[in-house]
C-alpha cells in the first residue's frame, strides 16, 4: 500500500492529465466525474499512457518480463520464426499477435500474455526458436506483478494485489487490466457484468457475452477485430446510450473520439510513372473545345447492328463508331495525329492512326490503343476493343498494346459527367473526353420538340501546333459523321 500512496501523490499532480487523457481515448464523461477513482485505479489506465505519465513525473515502474515460447503441442521443441508483427518499442496488449512461427507444416500465431512494451526480440526472421526459451522481453507495470502461465493473472510475489478493485457503489469487482480496458472501451460498468471466473472474477468472455446481449450482435473474441459489418459498428456507438437508456431515457452526448490517423505511403511503381507523365503533360499549353453531339440516329443504328455483332461473338458498344469517325477526321486534319519533338523543332505526322482508349482499372488509368484504325472496319475495331478490355480487366495487357498511341479518346461518360477537361498524353497532341449520353429535348428543323440522345465532347489540343480553328473543324467533321452515320459510308476507305 505504501507504494500505492507514493504513486497516488505523484499521480495527483498528473491527475488532471490522467483524466483528460482518459476522456480523449475512451470518450466517457463518466471518467471526468470519477477523477479520484481514476487516480486510485491507476492500472485501469492503458499501460502506454501510464508509462508516459510515469516518465514525465520521473517515476519508473517498468519491470522486464521474459515471455517464453509456450508449448506448441505434439511434442514439438523447436520452430522457425517466420514473421514478426511487432518491433522493439511497440506497445502490446494481452492477446495481441506477436509473431508467426512455423513447425512442420503447422503455422502458429503467438499472442502476448501481457500488456506492455516490447523491449527485445530474441530472434530474427528464419531463426530457430525453442519452446520454453524466451521469445520477447516485455516491460510491464510492476504493480501488476508477474503473470503466471494462464491468461488470467494469479497472485504475484509482490506486495500489491494484481487485481485492482473498482470501488463503485461499494461493489468490488475482480478483473484484469485487459478486461477493464475492454469494458471501458465499450462503456460497460463492471458491476453489471456477471463474472464466471474464480472468485466471480470477470473474464473477457463475460464482457463479450454482456455486449452480445446488449447489442444482439455476435462479437468476435478479440477486441481488436477490425471486421464488423456496418450495422454492428453503428451498434457499438449507441451501446452506451442504450445501456443508459434502461435507467435514464436521455441519450448521452459525449465528445466523439476520432481514432483515425493519417497514413503516409510512398509513391511507387505505376503511380511514380504517372507523376512523371502528367508533369510532362502540363508543360503542353492546352486549349479546350467542347460541343454537343446528337446521337439519335447512331443509337438507332447501333440497336440494329448489335444482334449482328453478337452472332459473330462480339459486343458492340458506341466506341468503335467514335473511333472510326475520329480516324476519318484525322485523314482530313493529320496535324491532330502528329507529335512534336522535345525541342519543338520538328513535327512528325504519324502515318498510323493508333487510337488509344482510356480504361479505368484497379491500378488506375491505362490507355491501350487500337492499331491502324485507318484500315480497320467498325467491326474490326469492336473485336480489338473486346480483346483489349478483357485483357485489361485481367491485368494482362502487353507492352505493345500500351505503346505507340497517336490520339486518345476517353469515354468518361460511362462513369458519368458531361463536360471535362482532359489532359493530353505525351507524345500526342490531342485528346477527346466523351460525356454520358442523355435523353434531352431538342428542336428539329420544323421547330418541333423531340427526344434527342445528346452526348457532350470536350477536346484538348496542344496549342503550340494546333489552332482553335483546326480543332473546331475536326470536331465538326467528327460530329457530322456521328450525327448522320450514313455519311461515313461515303468516306470509308
Amino acid at each position: 500500500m505504501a507504494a500505492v500512496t507514493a504513486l497516488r501523490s505523484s499521480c495527483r499532480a498528473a491527475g488532471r492529465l490522467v483524466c483528460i487523457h482518459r476522456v480523449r481515448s475512451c470518450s466517457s464523461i463518466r471518467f471526468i466525474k470519477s477523477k479520484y477513482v481514476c487516480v486510485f485505479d491507476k492500472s485501469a489506465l492503458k499501460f502506454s499512457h501510464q508509462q508516459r505519465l510515469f516518465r514525465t513525473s520521473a517515476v519508473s515502474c517498468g519491470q522486464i518480463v521474459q515471455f517464453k515460447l509456450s508449448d506448441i503441442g505434439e511434442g514439438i521443441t523447436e520452430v522457425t520464426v517466420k514473421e514478426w508483427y511487432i518491433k522493439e518499442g511497440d506497445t502490446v496488449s494481452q492477446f495481441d499477435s506477436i509473431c508467426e512461427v512455423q513447425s512442420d507444416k503447422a503455422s502458429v500465431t503467438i499472442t502476448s500474455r501481457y500488456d506492455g512494451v516490447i523491449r527485445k526480440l530474441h530472434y530474427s526472421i528464419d531463426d530457430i526458436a525453442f519452446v520454453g526459451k524466451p521469445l520477447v522481453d516485455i516491460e510491464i507495470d510492476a504493480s501488476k506483478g508477474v503473470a503466471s502461465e494462464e491468461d488470467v493473472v494469479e497472485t504475484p510475489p509482490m506486495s500489491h494485489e494484481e487485481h485492482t478493485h473498482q470501488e463503485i457503489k461499494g461493489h468490488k469487482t475482480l478483473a484484469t487490466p485487459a478486461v477493464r480496458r475492454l469494458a471501458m472501451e465499450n462503456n460497460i460498468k463492471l458491476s453489471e457484468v456477471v463474472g464466471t471466473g474464480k472468485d466471480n472474477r470477470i473474464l473477457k468472455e463475460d464482457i463479450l457475452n454482456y455486449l452480445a446481449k446488449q447489442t444482439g450482435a455476435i462479437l468476435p473474441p478479440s477486441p481488436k477485430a477490425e471486421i464488423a459489418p456496418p450495422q454492428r459498428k453503428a451498434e457499438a456507438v449507441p451501446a452506451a446510450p442504450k445501456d443508459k437508456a434502461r435507467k435514464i431515457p436521455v441519450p448521452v452526448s459525449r465528445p466523439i473520439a476520432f481514432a483515425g490517423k493519417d497514413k503516409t505511403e510512398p509513391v511507387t511503381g505505376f503511380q511514380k510513372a504517372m507523376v512523371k507523365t502528367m508533369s510532362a503533360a502540363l508543360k503542353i499549353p492546352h486549349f479546350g473545345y467542347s460541343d454537343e453531339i446528337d446521337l439519335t440516329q447512331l443509337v438507332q443504328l447501333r440497336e440494329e447492328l448489335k444482334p449482328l455483332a453478337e452472332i459473330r461473338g462480339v459486343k458492340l458498344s458506341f466506341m468503335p463508331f467514335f473511333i472510326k469517325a475520329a480516324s476519318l477526321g484525322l485523314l482530313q486534319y493529320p496535324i491532330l495525329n502528329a507529335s512534336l519533338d522535345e525541342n519543338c523543332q520538328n513535327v512528325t505526322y504519324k502515318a498510323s492512326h493508333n487510337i488509344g482508349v482510356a480504361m479505368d482499372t484497379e491500378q488506375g488509368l491505362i490507355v491501350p490503343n487500337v492499331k491502324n484504325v485507318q484500315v480497320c472496319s467498325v467491326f474490326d475495331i469492336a473485336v480489338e476493343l473486346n480483346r483489349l478490355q478483357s485483357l485489361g480487366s485481367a491485368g494482362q495487357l502487353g507492352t505493345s498494346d500500351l505503346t505507340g498511341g497517336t490520339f486518345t479518346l476517353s469515354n468518361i461518360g460511362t462513369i458519368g459527367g458531361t463536360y471535362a477537361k482532359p489532359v493530353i498524353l505525351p507524345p500526342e497532341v490531342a485528346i477527346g473526353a466523351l460525356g454520358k449520353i442523355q435523353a434531352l429535348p431538342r428542336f428539329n428543323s420544323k421547330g418541333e420538340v423531340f427526344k434527342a440522345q445528346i452526348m457532350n465532347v470536350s477536346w484538348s489540343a496542344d496549342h503550340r501546333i494546333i489552332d482553335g480553328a483546326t480543332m473546331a473543324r475536326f470536331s465538326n467533321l467528327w460530329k457530322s459523321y456521328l450525327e448522320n452515320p450514313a455519311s461515313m459510308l461515303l468516306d470509308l476507305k
Partner: protein
Amino acid sequence: MRCAVFKNMVLQSLKNCLWLSCVLRTPKACFWSTASGGLIIQSVSNDVYQNLAVEDWIHDHMDLEKQQVLFLWRNSPAVVIGRHQNPWQECNLRLLRQKNIKLARRRSGGGTVYHDLGNVNLTFFTTRKKYERMENLKLVVKALKALRPQLDVHVTDRYDILLDRQYKISGTAAKLGRTSAYHHCTLLCNADKFVLSSVLKSPFKGLKSNATPSVPALVKNLFEEDPSLTSEMLLDAIAKEYAVQHQIDHHITLINPADETLLPGISDKTNELQTWEWVYGKTPKFSVSTCLNMVYKDSILDVKVNMDVKHGRIEVCNIDLPEQWLPPGLYSELVKSLTGSKFCPNETTTLVTTLLRVCPQDDELHTRWSLLCENIIRLM
C-alpha cells in the same frame, strides 16, 4: 429490450430473424449446434477464397470448447500455397494466368497443392489443446478402408497419406491460434494430374529464398485404384466416420460462404485473401539473380539482372546493360521506377509503357526499351 434489439439489427428476412433469435439465447458464436460434441459442415461454394475465408471465420469466431467441427470443401481449379511460401518458386505463374487458374495463399503452413473438383478438402477444427493431427488422419484412413476395404492406405510420420506405400494421396497443413486450431488436408479422388504436374513446376531460375519449399511427391488418384469412387462418396464416408467417433448424427449442414448474416464479416475475409498484398506481398524476402538473353539485331545480348524483393516489392534493382545501350538518364529512370514497385508483370508493364511517353521519340530507342522491358516482365 429484445424488440429494440431486433429493430436495430439489419435483418433481411423473417428466416434470418429466427436464426438470430436462436443465437441471442446462446450468445456464444455457434449457430448451428444443438449442444452436441461435433458439427459437420460442407460448403456450397467452389471458390477457393470463399472457402479459405470460412476456415478463418470459424477459427476466429467459433467456440470449439463444447463442439469440434469438420468442414468439407472442394474448389474449382486453384493453386494454394502455404503461408510462408514463394509463389514464383512454387508454381508456373504464367501458366496459371493463361489457364485462368486462381492462386491463393492459405494461413496454415506447409507446401503447395493443386485443387480442382476432383480433390476433396477436409478441415478439422478443435481447441488448441485438442489439436491432434495423427488422430484426424487415422480417421480418414479408417473411413477409406470402411468404404473400400481393399485399399492399401496408411499415414506416414510426415502426416501424408500414401496409397500402395508409394503414391501420395493426401497432404496436410495446420494453423494454431491462441485458443483454437485447425488441421486441414487434401484427398485426391479424381484430380487432373496433368495440369497438376505442369502448374506445380516453376520455370524460375536464379531464385534465392528462405521460403518454405515444397517437397515434390509422386501422386495418384484414388479413382485410378477404383474407378467407382467419386468425391461425393469420399466426403460422405469421412463424414460418417467423424459422426461415429464424435457420437453425433451423420448430418451434414450446408453453408454458403457468401452469407454475411450467418457469418458476419466473411466478405471482408474473402476480400483480404484475394488482395495482391496477401497473395504475393506476404512472400518472405527473396532475391533474383538471372541472365536475360536478348536477341537484338542478329546478336545475342547477355544482360545480368539482380533484384531483391521484399513484401513482393522490388527493394534493390540492378540491370547490367552494355554501356550507352540506353541513354543513361533513361536507364536510371527505369531503375528508379522499378525500385519500390511491385514484382508484378501488370504493374511493370503499365509502369514502363507510361515512362516511354516521356522518352525522346526515337524508333531505335523504343525498340531497345521494349525488348529490355519485355524480358524483365517475363521474369515476373
